[in-house]
């Protein structure tokens, strides 16, 4: 364990500096431009990855279906807004509730599943929701999708703004919230219980851990946060459709990847992963999309395979190997 005097001063200073930069950043760029949109989405995806981290990192259940909760949140708040003029802020709570409840329900039949089976079940669930959303046109608008009703003046109550700055801070706040929750969970009883039941379920039970209850609780928290992110996303983006909001590749896999690449089961992994992956995707999209549909995604898939082949344990382990070699 490396701890020395320099470290004790370095850490808070770095955090302070980072916080200042993060708060100033949106004001240094055009408030409706490309850059601020990227930053905003960065914090959104980091939040999503953090919510995935609760189940994927602590309990080591690889979910490939988190888009289910994302989409549920999105549809809940938008439909409530459209039909009942419910404020998106309340819709945020509603979206979290629906997603959380669904998470609890889904965790029951998947309780004893591990590894590949669990991934499979979650993937199937999100796909089913996608197909239901596509076919239940009377409720969801079908494949055409839904739009959040646009209001010219915007305003806080409607969570719509002329400038890009408020949403930057909203997403930042969401990231802080989800990271805070993750940290709390990992440091408290439930965190220990999750790690225990990941390591040895029988032994965990033998010392009094209610494995079922713990898993359900973790699922609810993870799903709720993801649902909340869904609400924020559609308010930010205005338009969504079943194929994009429940997307296996663009949401479920991406979010899991961000967390894994940055460092699964670590507090800052999601942010690191987002900072790495999202700009990389942007670069791909801008350079390769012009060459044809599908090329940037292809590159994405190829890089994913390459990384796994080089270091199956992910980027953090890869960086670990590299820094060891460099003697850091």
């Amino acid at each position: 364990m490396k701890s020395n005097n320099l470290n004790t001063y370095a850490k808070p200073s770095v955090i302070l500096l980072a916080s200042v930069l993060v708060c100033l950043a949106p004001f240094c760029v055009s408030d409706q431009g490309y850059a601020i949109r990227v930053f905003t989405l960065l914090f959104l995806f980091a939040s999503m990855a953090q919510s995935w981290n609760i189940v994927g990192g602590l309990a080591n259940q690889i979910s490939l279906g988190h888009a289910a909760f994302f989409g549920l949140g999105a549809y809940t708040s938008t439909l409530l807004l459209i039909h009942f003029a419910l404020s998106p802020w309340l819709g945020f709570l509603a979206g979290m509730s629906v997603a959380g409840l669904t998470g609890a329900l889904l965790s029951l039949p998947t309780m004893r599943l591990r590894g590949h089976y669990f991934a499979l079940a979650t993937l199937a669930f999100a796909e089913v929701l996608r197909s239901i959303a596509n076919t239940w046109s009377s409720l969801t608008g079908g494949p055409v999708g839904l739009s959040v009703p646009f209001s010219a003046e915007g305003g806080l109550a409607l969570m719509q703004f002329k400038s890009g700055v408020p949403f930057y801070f909203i997403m930042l706040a969401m990231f802080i919230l989800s990271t805070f929750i993750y940290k709390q969970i990992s440091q408290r009883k439930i965190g220990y219980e999750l790690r225990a039941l990941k390591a040895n379920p029988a032994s965990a039970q033998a010392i009094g851990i209610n494995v079922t209850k713990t898993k359900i609780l973790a699922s609810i928290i993870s799903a709720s946060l993801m649902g909340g992110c869904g609400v924020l996303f559609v308010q930010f983006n205005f338009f969504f459709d079943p194929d994009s909001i429940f997307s296996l590749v663009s949401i479920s896999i991406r979010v899991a990847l961000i967390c894994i690449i940055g460092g699964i089961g670590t507090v800052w992994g999601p942010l690191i992963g987002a900072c790495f992956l999202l700009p990389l995707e942007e670069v791909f999209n801008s350079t390769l999309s012009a060459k044809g549909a599908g090329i940037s995604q292809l590159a994405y898939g190829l890089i994913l395979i390459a990384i796994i082949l080089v270091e199956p344990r992910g980027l953090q382990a890869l960086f670990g190997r590299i820094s060891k070699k460099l003697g850091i």
Partner: protein
Amino acid sequence: MALIQAILDGLMLGGVYSVISIGLTLVFGVISIVNFAQAQFLMIGMYVAYYAWAVFGIDPIFGALLSFAVAFVIGYLTQQFLISKVLKAPEVAQIFLTVGLLIVLDNLALILFGSEFKSVQTPYQNESIEFGGLIVSAPYAISFCASVVAGLGVWWLLARTWWGRTVRATSQDRMAAQLIGVNPEKIYRITFALGVALTAFGGGIILPYLTASPSVGEQFGVLMFTVVVLGGLGNVMGAVIGGLAVGVIQSVSSLFLPIQLQNLTLFCVFILTLALKPEGLIGRRTG
């Protein structure tokens, strides 16, 4: 009567589902990984058969044989150079390797073939056979027959060949198999190759009544996984029965339920089986 018709249609479709899914279950039973990209090989099979028809005029049922061959080669190489590298790695790596493959294949298809739907015209596609008040559409019937032939072929392979016996031994007891000198990697290569080739073959034989597109993988993915889970992951006979069951469930539920709920029905079957009887309804010991 409509019910019987639906059951009949379901069985016809189900036969094909069986063939498509045998490969997936075989891979899991022997190699112990879920190939998340399996449905993409269905798509490959469809495209190969499509171009065999479009360029050379070969009927898709025979084109499917070409699909089989092409997929076999791709599968063999995939196992050799990709999958084998992660068999000892954490599950996360295994899952994401085949997920990455899924992404690569889907987008390669998009780039190479474009996103338009491609369909074939066969001389028999509008014909049907009638008996006892029931109608059997010719494409369905022909695909079903092709599936039966394929199924018998697989049975023969598993029951009568050296490879088949070794595969069965390996899937039952890996360590014992190694102790008697079986080289698992060779078995894995042939198994994976055969597994994806079967699915590709299935893609070829459904071309007469379905269209090829890069998104075909998505359509069939969940379905294949449902079949395999119902029958028990690793259980080939289970995949056959599971396929027929899923075909019938799909077909019958379309009589009673609005389309939104049909998929939900399938999913409920899937999830309930996973939850209550993970070893499948046929219930064999896991590999």
